[in-house]
């Protein structure tokens, strides 16, 4: 795999995975509803950002 594309895959997967953990796992460990909600929203944002990094990396590698 080309190093340029690999960088975006790794960054995208790590960001998406962090977001999924923040959104799906952490709220179960918290007790206060506002904190649960905040963790969930932040996690969703991170996960979608990770998806965007993956798509962006796919397009950048293809255009080189």
């Amino acid at each position, binding site marked *: 795999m080309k190093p340029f594309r690999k960088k975006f895959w790794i960054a995208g997967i790590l960001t*998406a995975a962090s*977001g*999924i953990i923040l*959104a*799906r796992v952490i*709220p179960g460990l918290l007790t206060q*509803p506002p904190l*649960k*909600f905040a963790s*969930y*929203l932040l*996690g*969703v944002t991170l*996960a*979608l950002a*990770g*998806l*965007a990094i*993956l*798509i*962006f990396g*796919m*397009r950048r590698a*293809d*255009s080189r």
Partner: protein
Amino acid sequence: MFNFWQIFEGIYTFFTGSLETALLRILLIGIGLLLIYLCHKQILDPLILLPMGMAMIAVNAGMLVAGVGGINSLFLEPLVSQPDKLMQILQIEFLQPIYTFMFSNGLIACLIFIGIGVITDVDYLVAKPLPSMMLAVAAELGTIIVLPIAMMWGFNIKQAAAIAMVGGADGPMVLYTSLMLAKDLFVPISVIAYIYLSLAYAGYPYLIKIMIPKKLRGIRMDPFAIPKVSRIEKLTFSVIALLVLSLLFPVAAPLFLSFFLGVAIKEMAITRFQDFIEGPLLYGCTFLLGLVLGALFSIDIIGNVAVIKLLVLGMLALLFSGIGGLLGGLLYYKISGGKVNPLVGIAGVSCVPTTAKVAQKEAFKVNKWVMLLPYAMGPNVAGVITTAIITGIYVTAIPLLK
């Protein structure tokens, strides 16, 4: 004592109940006739509205005397849940099996979504994801604004979220959200949502004429300037998006699977599946959906005060979503230095492919050389994804707020 008119129960039942009930039945029959007329004139899309209009006429005209002072039809009873009564009704009511086994469990919504995935082009979305998502997010204005408005109007947060999803302009998502969050309002919300979504093709052009100056509507965008996206990229995108979105929003995973499976089938060029899904499956489900929706539009479902509030809120939700989308389009026009036609913003309202066709039609009226459809499909598809995301957020996060 024998009453001659009891032989013609459809007419007799007009006199057994209250005057309001009789007038409402006549009104609903009239609306059914109007829908058929508008389909004939090609003002509305007949695919869903013709079976809907015919079913509305039949279910409101064909009422029978049932029990003490009550009236009923042989079409379906959506509110029955006891298993023994349901088993009995399944063998009697004409559309009950379709409603129970396909509509109320969301199966028909998922099957239609597979069809939408197969006919959708994700090229522009994958080529330009950020502008597409920006327009799609702007076009979700209705789903966000109507939530507090519905709560102020007396609905609880779950019901308000189900009603606000009408602004997402995505029939399967509306069905799904109301099934998950507000089962008691599932039937009226679904019926109202589908009627409004069918009316969007006729209504949004007026909004466009108010908000977008004629000169801007005619801006040309070169369809050959869209970057080429390979099949493998589109396939990779659909697999990764399915994985991430399903992990994030498992309650909406069936819908994500349906849509991205359709996209994957198209990109892998499995023509046998494509032909089946595009043809018999999609049109068959659309036909049955129209029939069931029309049969649901009967006096015992619609004769409820909450329906008037739902009618107003549903209209507000779609109106605000259209306004949001067009404002997003105007912003994109400014950011691009005047190169982008702001009509692509209306395509962010995720009624695929209706709103993309509206954008193309309105641009074509001003300038016959404008080819907007390839650009409009990007935000149109992104709108499906953002609506699914908002569905997932409402269905997952709202119970967390308790």
